[in-house]
């Protein structure tokens, strides 16, 4: 049986009865998740599955601290990264170098800023000329790679992984391999939390625990494969419901049309 004090010591994220709503159109909100409590311990590799991508991503944003929950609290006991693959602090008018340097000034250990910048440039695949060009002039795929490189350049106790757009971890291309090596180095002996929607293969390959969220509620916690199945079933159920609804509506319209034709005759 685990020692409670040791377990508490190894806690890296505590979420207590957190709820979050997201904007949906003008002056309307939709529920992302509600009344959710969660303990994440050091070394956990946790994938967040949900039928609607925004549910898992909103939960990841709250757990990583870039968003605040509407209710409840999230406590960090260690450093937590922002969702890897995104970066709202990047400014398109500044060069890739300037954006990367700003992040490095904040997160690099003393004396390591230049080393981290070299690593970022190498992983992003940008040459010297491009690296000093305004980010707005970069190709979008290169911008995404730079965001990924900056996210992976620094050490965090917990690595939060959002949607990674342009990296296939199973590819054998040298660039993909370079990113994979760095990614594995960053999660080695640390905690990983990943939003699985849109990147199930990555989640299944790297996570040993899953969380399934349906209609904003935690319905299962355990094997990621089972989470994936649950979410697939939920998606199928939603599709069937929608199809039945549309069919019923079509049938009603058809009946109305036939009724109108008989009336004309």
């Amino acid at each position, binding site marked *: 049986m685990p020692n409670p004090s040791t377990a508490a010591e190894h806690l890296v994220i505590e979420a207590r009865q957190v709820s979050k709503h997201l904007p949906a159109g003008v002056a*309307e*909100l*939709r*529920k992302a998740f509600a009344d959710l409590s969660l303990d994440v311990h050091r070394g956990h590799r946790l994938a967040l599955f949900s039928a609607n991508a925004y549910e898992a991503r909103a939960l990841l944003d709250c757990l990583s601290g870039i968003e*605040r929950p509407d209710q409840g609290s999230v406590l960090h006991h260690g450093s937590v990264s922002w969702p890897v693959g995104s970066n709202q602090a990047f400014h398109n008018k*500044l060069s890739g170098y*300037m954006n990367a340097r*700003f992040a490095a000034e*904040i997160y690099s250990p003393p004396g390591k800023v230049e080393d981290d910048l070299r690593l970022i440039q190498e992983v992003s695949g940008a040459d010297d000329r491009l690296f000093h060009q305004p980010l707005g002039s970069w190709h979008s795929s290169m911008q995404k790679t730079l965001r990924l490189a900056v996210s992976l350049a620094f050490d965090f106790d917990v690595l939060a992984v959002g949607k990674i757009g342009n990296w296939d971890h199973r590819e054998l291309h040298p660039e993909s391999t370079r990113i994979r090596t760095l990614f594995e180095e960053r999660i080695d002996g640390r905690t990983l939390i990943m939003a699985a929607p849109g990147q199930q293969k990555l989640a299944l390959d790297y996570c040993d625990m899953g969380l399934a969220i349906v209609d*904003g509620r935690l319905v299962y916690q355990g094997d990621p494969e089972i989470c994936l199945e649950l979410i697939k079933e939920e998606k199928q159920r939603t599709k069937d419901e929608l199809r039945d609804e549309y069919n019923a509506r079509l049938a009603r319209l058809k009946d109305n049309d036939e009724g109108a034709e008989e009336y004309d005759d």
Partner: protein
Amino acid sequence: MVPNPLGRAISQILLQGRIISAVARREIQLKAAKGLFGVAGVFFEPLALIGTFLLLRVLIRGAGEGDYINPVLWLASGFVPFFMFTEVAIKALGGVEKGGDLYFYRRLRPLDSLMGNALLSSQIFATLMLLFILGVSAWEWQLAVAVPGFAIFIYLGFSLLGFGVGLSTLILGHRLPILAWIVKTFLRRFLLWTSCIFFPIRVIPDEFRHWILWNPLAHGVELFRQSLNPYYPAPDVSALYFWSWVVGSIGFGLLIYGNNEELLYLSEQLSDADKVIDAD
């Protein structure tokens, strides 16, 4: 291993210094990215005002100051610290929303961003002041500052006072935008005419002087001029009064900031419960 508290504190201070200077550098890079006028625009307003008032002085001979300090430097020593003060204070007032994207990096706190902006404004206006001092020194072929240490000390006081005033009104302004607008107008308009920028304090009759000298900026401006020439007469002006305001505003600002920092992170929320689309 138990971390050494002193070592930890020092490393935290060094880290904060690095973050503040990174914010200041990013701000100047963003200004530079806007083109030439991005940086030059900062210098334009004080330069235009100094130019206008200098022209007025040339047209109306004998008006203004000139007996103790070169007239250009006399005007600059009022305008530059004052504009720096308002720039720092107003940026502190509105800088949290402006720097919202930066808080994506959770290690960066709103206070770091405000301090970074204050540092940059102080550096820019210090450069402008230095240009005036060097220009006048070259024109008169003698150093235009008699007590440089005192000048730097007072200049820093202006910067800290601006930061303290901005920080003190930040939280209240966040809650009541009208208050922020009133403070901005007060800083830009009212203080401009009561801070001894256009007149030396000695020309104000004794019985009316206290109507001006409640304003710490008037003390600061006259003290700054005294650092240029120690014989410059500045009756009833007190460095202690000026620095009491500096320390008081910074202390009060940090106190209310420390108790309300969380407020600054909260974005406007559509909290009407009846508008929630719920799957239940």
